[in-house]
């Protein structure tokens, strides 16, 4: 990116002034910003691929009969759609945006371990290619959860092995990223950046780091056991030789539930960054926001069996898991109310990042309510494994994570490139995405209530109308995404430089670094003297108090 750097502060590390970037600068880079950039670009490509798979699923489901693809392909589409969207779109995007933004926000020059960071990036790319190879060699059949014995029985299925090896590589990559996030936040904060002066996005990075290093080992062990059972005759899950398939579900969801929070936590951080900027008010209840993230992350390790109420596990386990799951709604609700309170009597600017944040608040709330409904055992026993779950999960992951990711793209695009995305196209993008996603995912709730099972290619004609509606919604959503892609290309071709701080944000990444930032991020490491989000406050309250105390 240094060719677009406005002020060449960073020349001494290159040794000469007219430095032209070489291709190896990108492949061998250890600069968190470049690494973040590659993560983001790759993840967006995979988002398009995963979206295409979703499109094929919706075409198949537009009519009750199985007429577009055969059953094996359909299973493969479902498995790979989930895998790609979770492991190759949201997770790497999160890693990318944290790499780019978090060091800037804490006033650091880079991540704590730049080379480990690069290793994580390329292991991700290696794992992603391994997963993509399933398109050529046969897609895995067992869904993104790969429950045993679905995943252990068909030993000839090469797609399953590819899936296991690919996810293992991505898992190692995530652990490396997680270690880096934590140590960076703990050790590399600029002078004066105390714990409770950290922007909430930094808090979310820290919490995501914790979730990554503690949750990913569980999936590594689980898939190792599946691999050993598939090919070396070990028994862990096969009941014929004393194993237990429920063990797989325990191990998988011990990873799987925190994984959901790996996907949504950065969204919390992003929304908490954007809403104060466009409300011109400090975030409401800052400390509570930070603590609620920590509490959510902690609780997320104690909830896993809420995915297993109907699995046949010891029924005595169900009740505590139900109660804990409902408790996690409390800190999440606190965040919702705090975001709304931040906007309350603020001066709202409805720029594209804010529009998407508002969309997030609405859709994520629906997703959250669905989650509370699913958490209650008597209801869950009836609607688990139906389309209700699919609807809930997409409200949380699309309406939550992806909506926030879009907000982040519009918000930090000027920071990364120096150009601002076109607002009009952004509004079109939002309109199509918002209407399309609700049209797709809302009917799934009552489809599930009526009993339509998930992961099926053909269904009772009773469900035809709502499925057609969902498919039309999917098409609208897909069309909306074209506006974002067009926006990238038009904006980058126009090369119309925007202001250094187009949103008038008070974050360090905007006030102390150029857009795009120089290779070393800052000319001088900033010294932090105020709380984050001092919007509309003439004298920051703490500074005023300190000034008073010093008389």
């Amino acid at each position, binding site marked *: 990116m240094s060719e677009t750097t406005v002020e060449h502060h960073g020349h*001494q*590390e290159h040794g000469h002034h007219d430095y032209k970037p070489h291709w*190896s*600068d990108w*492949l*061998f880079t*250890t*600069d968190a910003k*470049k690494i973040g950039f590659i993560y983001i670009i790759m993840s967006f490509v995979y988002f398009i691929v995963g979206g295409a798979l979703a499109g094929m699923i919706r075409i198949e489901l537009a009519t009750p009969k199985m007429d577009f693809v055969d059953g094996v392909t359909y299973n493969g589409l479902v498995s790979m759609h989930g895998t790609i969207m979770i492991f190759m779109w949201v997770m790497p995007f999160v890693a990318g945006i944290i790499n780019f933004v978090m060091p800037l926000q804490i*006033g650091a*020059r*880079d991540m*704590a371990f*730049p*080379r*480990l960071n*690069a*290793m994580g990036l*390329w*292991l991700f790319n*290696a794992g992603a290619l*391994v997963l993509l*190879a399933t398109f050529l*060699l046969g897609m895995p059949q067992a869904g993104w959860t790969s429950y045993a014995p679905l995943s252990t029985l068909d030993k000839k299925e*090469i797609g399953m092995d590819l899936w296991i*090896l690919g996810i293992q*590589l991505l898992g190692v990559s995530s652990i490396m990223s997680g*270690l880096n996030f*934590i*140590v960076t936040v*703990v*050790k*590399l904060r*600029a*002078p004066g950046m105390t714990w409770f002066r950290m922007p909430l996005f930094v808090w979310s990075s820290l919490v995501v780091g914790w979730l990554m*290093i*503690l*949750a*990913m*080992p*569980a999936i*590594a*062990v*689980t898939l*190792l*056991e599946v691999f*050993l059972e598939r090919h070396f*005759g*070990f028994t*862990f899950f096969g009941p014929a*030789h*004393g*194993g*237990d398939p429920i*063990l797989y579900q*325990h*191990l998988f969801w*011990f990873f799987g539930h925190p994984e959901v929070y790996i996907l949504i936590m950065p969204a919390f951080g992003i929304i908490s960054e954007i809403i104060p900027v466009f409300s011109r008010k400090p975030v409401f209840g800052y400390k509570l926001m930070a603590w609620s993230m920590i509490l959510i992350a902690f609780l997320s390790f104690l909830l896993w069996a809420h995915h297993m109420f109907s699995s046949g596990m010891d029924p005595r386990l169900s009740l505590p898991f139900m109660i804990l799951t409902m408790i996690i709604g409390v800190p999440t609700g606190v965040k919702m109310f705090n975001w709304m309170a931040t906007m309350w009597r603020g001066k709202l600017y409805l720029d594209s990042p804010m529009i998407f944040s508002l969309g997030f608040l609405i859709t994520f709330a629906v997703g959250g309510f669905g989650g509370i409904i699913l958490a209650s055992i008597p209801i869950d026993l009836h609607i688990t494994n139906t389309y209700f779950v699919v609807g809930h999960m997409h409200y949380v992951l699309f309406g939550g994570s992806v909506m926030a990711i879009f907000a982040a793209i519009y918000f930090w695009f000027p920071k990364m490139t120096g150009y601002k995305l076109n607002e009009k196209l952004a509004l079109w993008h939002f309109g199509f995405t918002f209407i399309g996603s609700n049209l797709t995912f809302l009917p799934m709730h009552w489809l599930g209530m009526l009993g339509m099972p998930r992961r099926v290619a053909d269904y009772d004609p009773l469900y035809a109308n709502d499925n057609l509606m969902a498919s039309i919604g999917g098409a609208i959503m897909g069309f909306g995404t074209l506006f974002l892609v067009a926006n990238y290309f038009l904006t980058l071709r126009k090369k119309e430089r925007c202001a250094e701080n187009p949103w008038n944000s008070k974050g360090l990444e905007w006030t102390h670094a150029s857009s795009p930032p120089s290779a070393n991020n800052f000319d*001088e*490491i900033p010294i932090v003297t105020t709380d984050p989000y001092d919007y509309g406050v003439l004298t920051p309250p703490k500074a005023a108090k300190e000034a008073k105390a010093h008389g």
Partner: protein
Amino acid sequence: MADSNSHNSSVTPYTHLGHTNPWPFTASVGLMVAVFGLLLVALKSPVGWMLTIIGAGVFLIAVFSWVTMLVREDIGEATGLTNPEFPSIGRWMVGFLILSETFLFGALFATYFYLRNHDQVYTGSLLHFYNLEGKVFEIWGLFPILNTIFLVSSSVTVHFAEEALRHGKEKLFQILLAITVVLGVLFVGGQVYEYYNFAVNEHFTPQVSTFAGTFYTLTTLHGSHVLAGVIVLTSLLVGSFYKSLSPKRHIALSVASIYWHFVDVIWILLVAIIYLRYI
């Protein structure tokens, strides 16, 4: 800017490292090629093994170059600079790594406890301690006892190696570190022999029961951690002959030693839980 850099050096590490490094990329490519190679082996393609070996070779060369570079940086020849912040960063890093590894072993121990409980409920047996012929089979014996002695004493020697280094007794430090490495190698050797003895002489293979499978998985995972520790300690030992470590720069050894103690603790848990069934 140079002034502000040195002024703020405590919060600006790594600016001296430059912004590129070829080894992470190369190592990842090697690993990926090896995975695809193995895949082709499974598909019975003639180029499978060749690809695997090439990929693994590239990976190993990249990792070796990376480690060499780290040692060189410690020696100070590569950069001529040291990073004053690194010691505490390195300790934090290994701390969190250990936490992550705890969850890795935790998941496997959980597997063990779950299956043991499952056995009691469904088959009434405490565990399938049987070999292929159905004879009751005792896994505790001479080799686990020897291995325990090796690993525990290596934890002691690595600790005193660090002490010796801090007090500038360089020869003593090198001798103690060498002993640690030898003990680690003996442990791995003992484990390989134990496997051989179990599988060939006692017909106790991973396939005979859920217990056998869990036993082999856990001990192999642990053994691979010992092996990784041996490699790290060996590279430190080699580096020490080129003065990469000194009383003021012992951090690499401290970090490796923390990790080594952790591996030792896991072994003790393994002995108590799997071998002796105390818990």
